[in-house]
């Protein structure tokens, strides 16, 4: 895990909000001096005979946001679920290829998916707070369920603040997590994911069930989280991808068609299919 002070030191040298300009993103993408945080090589995912992800290779630099876009059923979710081994539990699912996080292959022998998932957190499409737990317990769940006892007040407050939810819930931390509105529940789930201090945060359409105001809050949050985390976000909304990401990957029928700086993907894509999709000709 990144020690928090180091991360703060890094962020203080950067501009407060890193704009997804093509120049900045391009350097991030081509900068060979830094090791990619996440590197995928020839990834294939099968559900029994269905070849859902086909030969995908890409890399993500630390402290950047990668947006994954594409029409429904193109394998966006399947792809990011492969990055924290969520397919392990799906009967009939098979993953081939290599996924490196900090240079270590997730699918190598002897890698414990449980330990891995503590480093690669995930926020799901629908808010899924634990219904038997209070707001406080939901945020602390990643710690308490992993047997870390004691007082989690500081962690809970920090994560709720990071998720821009603290002011709304600070007076009712003992209320049920499910008593919140949909947008609040989703921010609660983000706070819960942050509490285990992951290095990579996977977000599977985190705003698809939310109204524009809640969506804006979550996008703002992504900008802030980028200072510390590496984020891969699946989104249906191309505007959202344009707003939050440094780089964008376009998936179609299980293949990675194109990846590049977000501005380039939306204004000057290399591939015809990307252009057709981002200009709304299909999908």
């Amino acid at each position, binding site marked *: 895990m990144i020690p928090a002070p180091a991360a703060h030191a890094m962020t203080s040298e950067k501009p407060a909000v890193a704009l997804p300009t093509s120049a900045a993103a391009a350097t991030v993408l081509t900068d060979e001096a830094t090791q990619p945080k996440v590197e995928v090589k020839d990834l294939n995912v099968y559900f029994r005979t269905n070849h859902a992800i086909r030969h995908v290779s890409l890399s993500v630099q630390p402290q950047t946001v990668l947006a994954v876009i594409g029409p429904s059923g193109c394998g966006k979710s399947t792809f990011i679920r492969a990055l924290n081994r969520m397919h392990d539990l799906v009967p009939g699912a098979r993953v081939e290829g290599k996924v490196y996080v900090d240079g270590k292959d997730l699918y190598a022998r002897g890698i414990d998916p449980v330990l891995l998932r503590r480093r690669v957190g995930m926020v799901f499409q*629908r808010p*899924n707070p634990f*219904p038997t737990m209070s707001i406080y317990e939901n945020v602390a769940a*990643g710690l308490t369920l992993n047997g870390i006892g004691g007082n989690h007040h500081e962690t809970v407050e920090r994560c709720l603040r990071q998720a821009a939810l603290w002011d709304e819930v600070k007076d009712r931390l003992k209320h049920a997590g499910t008593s919140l509105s949909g947008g609040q529940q989703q921010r609660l789930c983000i706070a819960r994911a942050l509490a285990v201090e992951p290095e990579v945060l996977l977000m599977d359409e985190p705003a698809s069930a939310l109204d524009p105001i809640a969506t804006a809050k979550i996008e703002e949050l992504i900008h802030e989280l980028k200072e510390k985390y590496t984020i891969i976000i699946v989104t249906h909304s191309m505007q959202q991808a344009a707003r939050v990401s440094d780089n964008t990957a376009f998936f179609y029928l299980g293949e990675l068609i194109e990846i590049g700086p977000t501005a380039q993907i939306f204004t000057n894509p290399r591939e015809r299919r990307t252009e057709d999709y981002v200009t709304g000709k299909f999908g």
Partner: protein
Amino acid sequence: MMNLHSSFLYRKMVDRGMAVVCALLFLVAFIPLLSVLWLVITKGAAGLSWDFFTQLPKPVGEEGGGIGNALIGTLAMVAIACVLGLPLGVGAGVYLAEKGDGTIGNTIRFMAEVLSGVPSIVIGIVAYALVVKPMGHFSALAGGVALAILMIPTLARATEELVRLVPGSLREASLALGVPNWKTSMRVVIRTAMSGIVTACLLAVARAAGETAPLIFTALNNQYWNFDPRAPTASLTVQIYNYAISPYDDWHTKAWTASLVLLLVVGMLNVASRVMTRSRLKGAR
């Protein structure tokens, strides 16, 4: 415009009509339930007294006496059935829900379904062969085993359904936090289903407490106090049966009163299940 208006009136009438039909059907269904309660209360309440709960049954012709031994016997046998049946039933249900998609799971599920359809008297005979025969005499233990066998299949199926109702997204959320599989099952999935499982357990216990047939060949009966699980034991249901088939008016009254006691025991279990499963969280839905 006229047409639209009349069709609106028509729809409103059908709506009213259907509401009335539903209310009537509810009343029809409610009558037997009310009449059972009414009969048991009016005929049984007269016999209620402190002695009824604390005394042994008296021989025919003598006034007074109670069913204290039968009450203790029923509670003891239900307790034995709980110790044996609840862990096995709930455990089997959790297994079926979490790991039961293979051949073993399907076999167990099929067996549980068949077993839950077996008449309770047959289970009494099985418990007779399994426990009474080898021991050489009737016992509370045999009665408890019979009740446990009765509880396990229904409890297993109910638990399985309840655990399967827990959304997969909660399991995923827990796994994504790096919580191991078994802990996710125990602390997230089963904990979410827990209120339902507690209700299912209490309903199974209530059902077992009301069984007569499996006890006739297993616990038999006993006119005296008995605190030895290896000896024949009285139970409320068998006592009610004996009193009800007797030719004496006094015993008939006692049968009604004992029925009322049994109803109260079962009713209290139901209330307990409501209280125990109430959410401790504010604003919980």
